[in-house]
């Protein structure tokens, strides 16, 4: 019994130490990546190329999802608001839900599974096929040339994708609320215009999505760079990227919501 407890404590200790080591490695990797980011801006075409792969190619899933989420919000919102005789407030409900929460969070979750996984798989495969080692042997730092441009592409793309998600969502809410159900278009837009605050709602949503962008792409590039150079290693790293970054998005959302909107 005593031996078993000792073993359990030892396992626990090893896990905690491993976790702390991993956190330290991730922090050091983040610092090096920031220090090596000069290339991403001096040769901005490298970052633009990655924005295309991470951002532009994610547009379809983001826009279609945004439209459907907005349409569902329109239906559900109307169903609730009409009970209290406030159907005109549908525009406000749809806009605030999207700008504050659903836009940044759902777009981030979609971005993690579409672009985050692709970034991890690409860097992991480059490592497995010795492309990163070849780069180092050519005196080119893979963190500056491969990792940093992907990181900044993710950070720049995420707020834009979240904004487009929200815009499509509001359009979806309009289609269902105004065009389908018959809510007054003037009330829908004017109430939205008068209630939604640029700083409190729009800007905070943008800040949220930028933080999510940092978290997702940091996790994605780290997992790819640190993946064991085997098929199984890359596959596991890709899965870890989606799971870890999704959890990180939800946890960060709670923290930021608590900090941003507690006074309202």
């Amino acid at each position, binding site marked *: 019994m005593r031996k078993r407890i000792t073993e359990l404590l030892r396992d626990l200790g090893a896990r905690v130490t491993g976790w702390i080591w991993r956190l330290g490695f991730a922090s050091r990797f983040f610092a090096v990546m920031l220090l090596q980011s000069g290339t991403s801006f001096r040769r901005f075409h490298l970052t633009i190329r990655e924005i295309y792969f991470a951002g532009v190619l994610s547009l379809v899933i983001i826009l279609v999802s945004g439209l459907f989420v907005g349409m569902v919000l329109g239906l559900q919102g109307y169903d609730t608001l009409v009970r209290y005789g406030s159907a005109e407030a549908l525009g406000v409900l749809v806009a605030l839900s999207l700008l504050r929460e659903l836009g940044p969070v759902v777009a981030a979750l979609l971005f993690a599974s579409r672009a985050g996984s692709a970034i991890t798989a690409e860097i992991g495969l480059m490592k497995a*096929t010795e492309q990163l*080692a070849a780069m180092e042997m*050519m*005196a*080119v*730092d893979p963190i500056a*040339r491969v990792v940093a441009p992907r990181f900044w592409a993710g950070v720049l793309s995420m707020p834009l994708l979240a904004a487009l998600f929200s815009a499509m969502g509001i359009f979806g809410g309009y289609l269902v609320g105004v065009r389908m159900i018959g809510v007054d278009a003037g009330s829908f837009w004017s109430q939205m215009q008068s209630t939604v605050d640029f700083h409190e709602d729009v800007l905070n949503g943008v800040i949220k999505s930028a933080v999510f962008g940092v978290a997702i792409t940091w996790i994605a590039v780290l997992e790819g760079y640190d993946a064991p150079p085997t098929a199984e290693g890359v596959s596991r790293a890709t899965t870890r990227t989606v799971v870890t970054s999704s959890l990180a998005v939800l946890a960060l959302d709670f923290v930021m919501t608590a900090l941003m909107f507690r006074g309202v």
Partner: protein
Amino acid sequence: MPSQDADKKRVDPENLPQAPSRRVGENLVEVDNVTFGYDRRIVLKGISLAVRRGLVVAIMGGSGCGKTTTFRLIGGELKPMSGEVRVAGRIVNRLSTRELFELRRKTGMLFQFGALFTDLSVFENVAFPMREHTDLPEALVHDLVMMKLQAVGLRGAASLMPSELSGGMARRVALARSTALDPMLMLYDEPFAGLDPISLGVIGRLIRRLNDALGATSIIVTHDVVEALQIVDYVYFMSEGKIVARGTPAEIRASKDAFVHQFVHGEFDGPVSFQYPAPDYRQDLFAQAA
């Protein structure tokens, strides 16, 4: 039937220009009493070797003998536990990252399977080191890339993607890329692995001819005895983390050393035993019956 023009375009490794001056003499690479291990497992046990400028030298030995580790130490990827690795008079294991990168600009390396960048075309792969390390105008980069590709016989494949190349072609493109900046030292990691006989012969000749044309020095890590002995000037044989034999190809072929003899002639049994150590065979077979 191919036209005369097509024949002219095809590379003839025999006719590559010779280096204006081959400064054979001083050592470019020196590995001095180096010991190295991964965690507690010692892989290299105090090995020493030297590579003179202008020569093509092979490091040979069976799998797991430590030849690739030696190679990685020369390239600065690993640091020895003790001893020194010197390239062009500089102690590689004491260089800062910046100094190491400076040295690597003068070093070319061919990886086992080419390690071409899969998102770049053949042309862009060869242009990669030039774009990263020089400010040459685009027209000049174009001409240099075409010259490098012509030298390996793949100028016509410039627009292809790596996925469209055969193993031998990929290796030749990687060779063109590794010589893009006219390196003083070329490192080849198993350059003959997995190639058909024609590609194997082409790569072997290209290694020899490019080395002489560039006035470079080449180190080849390989276990392909037949091909390597045809093109190299000197051979180091490794076994269990030690240099066990050295000499010119002729000396190696004539060697009476049991290990070298077994390796060069591909003998079934010898110092490297066919059987993995095991208890008595009879005991294993009849143990249950008893």
